[in-house]
């Protein structure tokens, strides 16, 4: 960094000065006065003269604070851990206080730009030091100093003060960018501290609860997607190593809080989440799909003779805040798709479908899952519009004999087992709370079962539903009503199929599920 000679010593002196001032009785009694005195010292040492010097000051300070922590950390174990931590935090918290005061007092009181610029600069510097440290120390990397800086700075800058309230959304945005840059896939050694930050009660509260017009939701959704993307390769395999299990359980806890406190958030972003959650991650996906708006009363899916198509909610389209149509790539494929949906020709479009979806011959990785998901939801969404335009509403009759159902039936027949599994998963991911998508895709799944020309398709449809039902709760409402309809409605002759009786334990399983459903 070829810092100017003497700057390191100067910075060290000033930092030491500030820590002493901050912890002195006078400092405690009148922090603002102490701060202005210190700013004067900074000026005298020329630190605030240029933007570059300010940047170097923060970088050097951050590095010193981190180094200090590294010196303490080896004996941060056992009974003395709390004391050792407090010794570290004695300096770290003072440094954070300095940053927060500088941010608060930078520029004019009502000029938020300078404050946010400084905040972004400091967050960027801390992130940069972290990444360099992560690279350098590798498996000896320590997350604590950075976690402490980030969380304490967040607490400081979320104090109930008018100046801070005025810049709160920009603060959240700055934090979002920083956390996205430091996402687990980029800094795996920081993963646990990252999730601790992202799910801190104050961060959750600000991002999802207190910020008006849900302006923090799309940022939080992105952070969750970062987490899911990181976990995906590890969750993809059944055997979870302990570090993964801990991170996974932590993720479940966060999702449970979201399901309990912000179900609408999970409802709005479910598509984006399911797109990056591995298909075999059934319980976590069920948790997201189980969310339903708080003002909605769900009819008991086990009610005998429940007339789903009489529910008012099934005509309501759910909010899907992910641009799934844009995910249908390449554009030429999208064009062909739209053409086929409109004209139901050429037939070759159907036979080419699989080649558009298949990306390799490697088992387990053959298909472009995001494209499959997008295709299914897009075609379903267009089908509902198409049926409505005819003044009808989706049901077992109106969904049939259309370009949309052509595509679905073709996928059911033409894909191999792996592909069909992903296709059926994409449909099952839409079985949620009462809404037009749930109803349409529930009918579609049952229609595919009824019209299947081979039992293998029917068996796989059953497997996809069953594997979602045999994990611990919660279970999405749409999943339950679809399965109940499948096993109760004689038109599907469910119990006549051989795969229901292929083994005693399977049969017993079906019966026990049926008993609990009927």
């Amino acid at each position, binding site marked *: 960094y070829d810092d100017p000679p003497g700057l390191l010593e100067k910075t060290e002196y000033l930092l030491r000065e500030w820590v002493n001032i901050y912890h002195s009785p006078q400092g405690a009694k009148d922090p603002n006065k102490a701060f202005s005195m210190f700013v004067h010292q900074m000026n005298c040492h020329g630190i605030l003269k240029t933007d570059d010097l300010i940047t170097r000051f923060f970088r050097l300070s951050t590095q010193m604070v981190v180094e200090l922590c590294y010196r303490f950390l080896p004996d941060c174990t056992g009974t003395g851990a709390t004391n050792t931590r407090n010794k570290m935090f004695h300096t770290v918290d003072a440094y954070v206080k300095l940053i927060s005061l500088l941010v608060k007092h930078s520029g004019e009181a009502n000029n938020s730009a300078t404050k946010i610029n400084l905040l972004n600069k400091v967050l960027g510097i801390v992130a940069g030091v972290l990444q360099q440290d992560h690279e350098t120390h590798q498996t000896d990397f320590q997350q604590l100093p950075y976690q402490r800086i980030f969380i304490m700075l967040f*607490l400081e800058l979320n104090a109930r003060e008018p100046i801070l309230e005025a810049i709160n959304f920009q603060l959240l945005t700055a934090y979002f960018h920083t956390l996205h840059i430091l996402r687990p896939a980029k800094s795996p050694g920081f993963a646990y501290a990252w999730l601790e930050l992202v799910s801190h009660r104050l961060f959750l509260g600000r991002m999802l609860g207190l910020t008006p017009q849900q302006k923090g939701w799309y940022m939080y959704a992105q952070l969750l997607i970062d987490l899911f993307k990181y976990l995906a390769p590890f969750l993809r395999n059944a055997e979870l190593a302990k570090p993964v299990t801990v991170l996974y359980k932590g993720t479940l806890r*966060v999702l*449970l809080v979201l399901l309990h*406190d912000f179900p609408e958030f999970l409802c709005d972003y479910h598509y984006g989440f399911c797109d990056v959650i591995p298909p075999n991650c059934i319980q976590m996906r069920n948790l997201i799909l189980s969310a339903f708006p708080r003002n909605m009363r769900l009819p008991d899916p086990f009610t005998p003779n429940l007339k789903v198509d009489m529910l008012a909610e099934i005509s309501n389209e759910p909010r899907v805040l992910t641009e799934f149509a844009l995910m249908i790539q390449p554009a030429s494929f999208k064009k062909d798709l739209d053409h086929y949906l409109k004209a139901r020709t050429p037939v070759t479009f159907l036979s080419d479908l699989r080649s558009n979806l298949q990306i390799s011959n490697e088992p387990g990785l053959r298909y472009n899952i995001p494209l499959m998901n997008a295709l299914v939801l897009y075609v379903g969404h267009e089908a509902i519009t198409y049926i409505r335009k005819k003044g009808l509403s989706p049901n077992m009759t109106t969904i049939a004999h259309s370009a949309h159902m052509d595509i679905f039936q073709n996928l059911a027949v033409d894909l191999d087992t792996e592909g069909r599994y992903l296709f059926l998963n994409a449909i099952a991911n839409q079985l949620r709370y009462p809404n037009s998508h749930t109803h349409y895709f529930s009918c579609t799944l049952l229609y595919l079962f009824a019209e299947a020309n081979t039992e293998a398709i029917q068996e796989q449809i059953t497997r996809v539903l069953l594997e979602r039902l045999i994990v*611990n709760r919660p279970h999405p409402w749409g999943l339950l009503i679809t399965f109940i309809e499948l096993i109760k409605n004689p038109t599907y002759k469910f119990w006549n199929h051989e795969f229901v009786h292929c083994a005693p334990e399977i049969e017993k399983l079906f019966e026990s599920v049926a008993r609990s459903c009927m």
Partner: protein
Amino acid sequence: LGQDLTALGLNLNSPDNLYPTFGGPWAETPCRAQDIDFSVPPEYIIN
């Protein structure tokens, strides 16, 4: 199959929001009243 989500230390039946006392992804219990910061009158800060 899967986790028993009711055994992760969250009071899922609570009529109140969970996030104000959420203890974090690794905590087995929520935060207690003495863990939660509160803006008390400055006179109360004695230490």
